[in-house]
């Protein structure tokens, strides 16, 4: 690990100011992903800004009838919150399907959103990777890519986003609140938060340099039945091959988002109109234009069958 200086800050604006004026700095909250990447020198910050003491650890009701989740609410506390369990069960389920209890005890809401891909070539500094070193090439294309993207990817990168939580946030139309060093705040709908790889796979979201996430807000509860079905190589503590987040209403309408298939949580609102017509109709539009590799073509079928299973369970009442 490269040496770094360390700073504790006490307000969000102070954190953002410190980041703007200190080149090579990174925010650190739980650190469960960043420290791992720093050990491997995939991330090489020269200055860490500890944002754990900003008071952003509360979940509060909003005037709109939703919830405002502080950026540093721990994954365990978010999954355990009685309001989340009752009104946003898909979020609780997604969190509990991710990582291990030890990691959920440390990882934060904002950190979870910002975690980086687990593509093995991104992790292996001896291999070309456009996400790590832009222009070096993508080793996953033509390499080991059983667990890579099937939709929305580019010739530069076929990595997937690893988060389960973010898939539920996408389904729930969450918004990301931020602050800049000059005190300017903005709210980014999660649909506009993540980027597809295109020719710039190293840029994964629409945050500006030094911009700090302060909260994630959820709109009013959707009602309906909530599902987060994660299919993986082992029953626990593994990243998704595919995951299906869904909210299904009594009349069969609803929403669906996918994990494990793209560079970002994957949702196509136009596909959701087909939900009462069954999984095939939904997947046809949800995965329109999918370009799987020979090794991950199974994911298309797996998405279809997993959604079918979710919709069948929803029907059982």
């Amino acid at each position, binding site marked *: 690990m490269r*040496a770094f200086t*360390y*700073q504790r800050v006490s307000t969000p604006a102070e954190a953002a100011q410190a980041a703007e004026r200190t080149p090579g700095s990174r925010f650190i909250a739980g650190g469960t992903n960043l420290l791992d990447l720093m050990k491997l020198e995939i991330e090489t910050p020269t*200055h860490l800004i500890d944002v754990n003491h900003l008071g952003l650890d509360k979940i509060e009701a909003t005037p709109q009838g939703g919830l405002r989740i502080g950026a540093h609410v721990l994954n365990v506390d978010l999954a355990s919150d009685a309001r989340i*369990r009752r009104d946003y069960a898909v979020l609780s389920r997604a969190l509990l399907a991710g990582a291990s209890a*030890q*990691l959920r005890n440390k990882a934060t809401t904002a950190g979870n959103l910002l975690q980086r891909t687990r593509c093995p070539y991104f992790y292996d500094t001896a291999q070309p990777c456009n996400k790590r*070193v832009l222009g070096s*090439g993508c080793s996953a294309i033509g390499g080991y890519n059983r667990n890579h993207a099937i939709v929305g990817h580019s010739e530069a990168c076929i990595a997937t986003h690893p988060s389960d939580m973010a898939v539920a946030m996408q389904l729930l139309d969450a918004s990301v609140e931020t602050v800049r060093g000059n005190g300017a705040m903005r709210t980014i709908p999660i649909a506009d938060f993540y980027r597809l790889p295109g020719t710039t796979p190293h840029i994964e979201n629409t945050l500006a340099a030094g911009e700090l996430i302060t909260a994630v807000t959820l709109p009013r509860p959707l009602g309906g039945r909530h599902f987060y079905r994660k299919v993986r190589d082992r029953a*626990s503590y593994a990243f998704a091959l595919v995951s299906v987040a869904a909210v299904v209403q009594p009349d069969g309408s609803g929403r669906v988002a996918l994990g494990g298939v793209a560079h970002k949580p994957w949702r196509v609102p136009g596909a959701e109109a087909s939900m009462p017509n069954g999984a095939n109709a939904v997947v046809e539009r949800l995965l329109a234009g999918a370009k799987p590799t020979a090794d991950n073509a199974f994911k298309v079928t797996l998405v279809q069958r997993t959604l079918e299973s979710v919709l069948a369970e929803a029907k059982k009442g």
Partner: protein
Amino acid sequence: MDDSIETNIARRNVLKTGALAATATAVPLGAIAQTPNAGTAATPAVPASAPVTSKVKLRVNGKQHELTVDTRTSLLDVLRENLHLTGTKKGCDQGQCGACTVILDGRRINSCLSLAIMHDGSEVTTIEGLGQPGKLHPMQAAFVKHDGYQCGYCTPGQICSAVSVLDEIRKGVPSHVTADLNQKPLLSIDEIRERMSGNICRCGAYSNIVDAITEVAGGKA
């Protein structure tokens, strides 16, 4: 707050001169650059910056410690290398195996994925703090009784995790296998297995580990 960063940066600059002189001879920069095909993908060969140190106060197993450590030091390394509490084990050092599990401010974490300096004022319980020979924690005694290990390397992490599992179920923290999120989780074998999934045992003592935890939980093993 700003004072501490200025001080740190100033100290870093002072130390840098010496460190750069050292790396000039220690790191064969030219050799790295000449390695065939390495230039495109590898992180550019930049001389490492000088170490930065910081003070941290930790209460470990009820005993107060004040240390000055390199900012890069993990909580795991402080426990093992500075405090010589070698019960906590370094397995993967990547948060994948759970051998380094300790209880930090009442919650189990992977101590390998946590910087010591970020836990100023925290309370840490390690396997040594749970119990000692002759005065074992009930979970330690149950692991012995049920043979919940073979080589024993993962065992301190398993036991710290197991103690936390029962605490988490008692507090109503749900898990992936909790059937009804709006009810308190049950103390079942499925719950224990799911909640212990962050602790890998390469010897495969899992069924005995579950027996040990079940016994402490008050169930029939």
